[in-house]
């Protein structure tokens, strides 16, 4: 059964994955047994009762009550088991334990942002192992859906409303090198399939250490370096390259001080004010030949962060 599971399913890295996988395997095995039975019956009948002459006499029997009751009640019985099993696990997937560690998740086209209680933010999901984690999620634009196959959790992320999932990651094996992915599974436009990131599972103490290192700008960190950190944490890199290559939005390479031509034909020099406006109100000026795809970051970046990003862009 485990072998079957590991062929069809990704690694099970959460505490809930086990029972979901068992149910998946149970349905597969029961289905396979009935399916093979049906196919054997078909093949046998087709061979045994193949037409021999045009005058073959066939059975006039067109019903059999015990048989029909049998094949109605047995599936009903199986289905009640499957329903109940799925139902109880579903309730457990919905009720986060009260001692859960909470992380806020923001979905935007096309990146994820994770905010932690310490003030840390990241675009990869960092979670402690061995402790229930509850994600409180919302979208700033269209529908997204948060999915981690290795945890067997998924939930839509909706604008103007909070939804949540919870999971408890298992202690990572020392040798484990495979990546656990976060996928967006609700279609959200052009780069829907790039709205993916990694889950990093920490042991409890290394998680706390990571939180400390990533909570705001350390006093001794240069502003531009902090900007670079935000560039990664806020998901800017999904659409803006640093090496001049074209992604969804313009590259940051050599951007500062350049003359920008917009879709309405007007133009501006890319100075501090222009960059600030592009972050807070991106559709005010859309650069020619690019789509108006960027969501607003109004209210999501502190003043210091804005200055840091501007400094970071100046250096590119």
């Amino acid at each position, binding site marked *: 059964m485990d072998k079957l599971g590991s062929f*069809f*399913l*990704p690694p099970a890295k959460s505490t809930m994955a086990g029972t979901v996988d068992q*149910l*998946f395997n149970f*349905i597969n095995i029961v*289905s396979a047994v*009935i*399916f093979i039975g*049906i*196919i054997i019956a*078909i093949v046998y*009948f*087709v061979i045994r*009762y*193949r*037409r*021999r002459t*045009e005058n*073959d*006499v*066939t*059975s006039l029997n*067109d*019903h*059999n009550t015990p048989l*029909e009751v049998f*094949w*109605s009640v047995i*599936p009903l019985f199986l*289905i009640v088991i499957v*329903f109940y*099993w*799925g*139902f109880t*696990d*579903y309730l457990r*997937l919905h009720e986060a334990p009260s001692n859960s560690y909470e992380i806020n998740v923001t979905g935007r086209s096309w990146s994820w942002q994770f905010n932690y209680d310490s003030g840390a933010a990241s675009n990869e999901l960092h979670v402690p192992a061995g402790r229930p984690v509850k994600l409180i999620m919302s979208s700033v*634009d269209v*529908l997204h*859906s948060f*999915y981690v*196959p290795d945890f067997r959790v*998924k*939930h*839509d992320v*909706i*604008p*103007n409303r909070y939804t949540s999932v919870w999971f408890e990651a298992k202690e990572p094996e020392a040798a484990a090198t495979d*990546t656990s*992915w976060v*996928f967006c*599974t*609700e*279609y959200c*436009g*052009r780069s829907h*399939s*790039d709205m993916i990131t990694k889950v990093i599972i920490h042991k409890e103490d290394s998680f706390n250490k990571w939180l400390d290192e990533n909570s705001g700008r350390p006093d001794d960190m240069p502003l531009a370096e902090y900007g670079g950190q935000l560039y990664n944490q806020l998901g800017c890199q999904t659409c803006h390259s640093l090496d001049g290559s074209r992604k969804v939005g313009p590259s940051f390479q050599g951007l500062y001080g350049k003359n920008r031509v917009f879709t309405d034909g007007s133009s501006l020099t890319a100075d501090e004010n222009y960059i600030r406006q592009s972050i807070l109100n991106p559709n005010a000026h859309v650069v020619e030949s690019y*789509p108006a795809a960027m969501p607003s970051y109004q209210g999501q970046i502190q003043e210091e962060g804005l200055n840091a990003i501007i400094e970071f862009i100046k250096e590119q």
Partner: protein
Amino acid sequence: MSSTAHTDNPSALNLKRFVAPEVAEQNFMQAEQGIKAWLTTIDHKKIGLMYLASIIFFFFVGGMLAIALRLELWGPAKNFIDAETYNQIFTLHGAIMIFLVLVPSVPAALGNFFLPIMVGAKDVAFPRLNLLSFYIYLFGALFTIISMINGAVDTGWTFYTPYSTGTSTSVIWMTLGVFILGFSSILTGLNFIVTLHKLRSPGLTWGRLPLFLWSLYATSIIQILATPVLAITVLLLVMERTLGIGIFDPALGGDPVLYQHFFWFYSHPAVYIMILPGFGIISEVIAIFSKRRIFGYWFIAISSLAIALIGFLVWGHHMFVSGQSTLASVVFSLMTFLVGIPTGIKIFNWVATLYKGSIQLKTPMIYALIFLFLFTIGGFTGVMLGTLSVDVHLHDTYYVVAHFHYVMMGGMLIAFLAGLHLWWPKMFGKMYSQFWGNIAAVLIFIGFNMTFFTQFILGSRGMPRRYYNYVDQFQELHQFSTIGSWVLLVGFIIIAIYLAHSLLRGEDAPKNPWNGRTLEWLTSRQPVLENFNYTPVVLHGPYDFHEPISEFQYGIEGSHHHDHSGDSHGDATKAEKAVTNA
């Protein structure tokens, strides 16, 4: 017994035997000729054939789009088309296959041609309305084509808000197309219901109705009841886009989850619009090629109605992770399982029909057996997806993609091919190559499983659907699936070749090549304009193969303006007795 006789004076029925000639003096195609006659015809058979041609054309378009999608997925990132084009192509593939191919395929094409003949009528109840519904279909299709030219649509066929209200693509044209197509569907459903109630031949009781007609009856009920909800939904969507009223868009105070409820309230029953007629065809084919009474006639007939009704109460199983209430999810899961039971029992009944039959593996039967194989897998994986906790993992992955292709393509499209091969000789008067027919069927079977079984594995391993780009670990399975799509393509090319050959140079078909007992097989090779030169009288069940064919040839001298050209044999006494005993 005669106390419950159908008429006060049975001898007034004046039953005779009528044997239609092998070749009609003037079949329906010869009766009215030229482009204009075709475009203005109210003959249900010509309208059915025009639908058939349109559906085959759109199937070709939708199929080529699918081939392009599979080719692009050969490797992650860009292979030959960009992300925007990819998103437009999968949207179009879905919209075309569902609204222009699957929904009308069996009812509007095969149903239009055969329903009136199978009830022994001259035409549907409202022939002009029938022609109108065809033009509405074309008009709706035109809007879809305009949307393709006018920037295409990139929302997926589900048009989920708020993405669909914000995207710059041609959503309005496409949704208006869907809105218009809905009316075509409603009118066809209405026509069928009235025809089945009012135009059945004497003796054709509900218990003698071919199961294909029972399934069309159930389908028509859903078409009439569910399609208006789709119309309302897309109309509200268009109003939100154009007028900015806030129904679904949270930025305007609306609720995007409400849109999903509206959408699936139609689109889930629509799944049954798409599959029920397929069930009907499979019943006909299995009975004819087993030469046997169908097992569990009433159960198959009534389960179609049960599925039609319960099918209205399961839409929320598309929304287990959407943010609908937990209680709602639980109820929808339970209802979903309940709708699975009648479907499962149908499969058992079909298999039981093979028992002690006289089975002949002609091409339509091969397709029926393929249907049983693929649709059963589609059904079991449906149970998997109806299970709450497992669906959380599988929702919106390739598992769902594979499941609905097993049901829609492995089920409905295969059933459509079974029906097309069953009735091809009747529609066109020509036989096709059984050899190439069987080769193509086997290729499609192999190609289909290569393409879509692989996607079950992709999905349960976590590959999300509607992904242009994907992580490397999925590449091998994607490539295998793509190779499968080529095998499928070869299968369809072979079908196109031998059917074209059949049309141009095929052998003439006998009027009843499979020895069927339902009324369409009693007409000439290609039926005359109004199907019969007499009023057929039905004395036996549709699958009473043990009765000689002569028992099915009774009728009454009609008030028809044509002289019937068949032989008639006065054997009224026996037939009257049968009628009164029925």
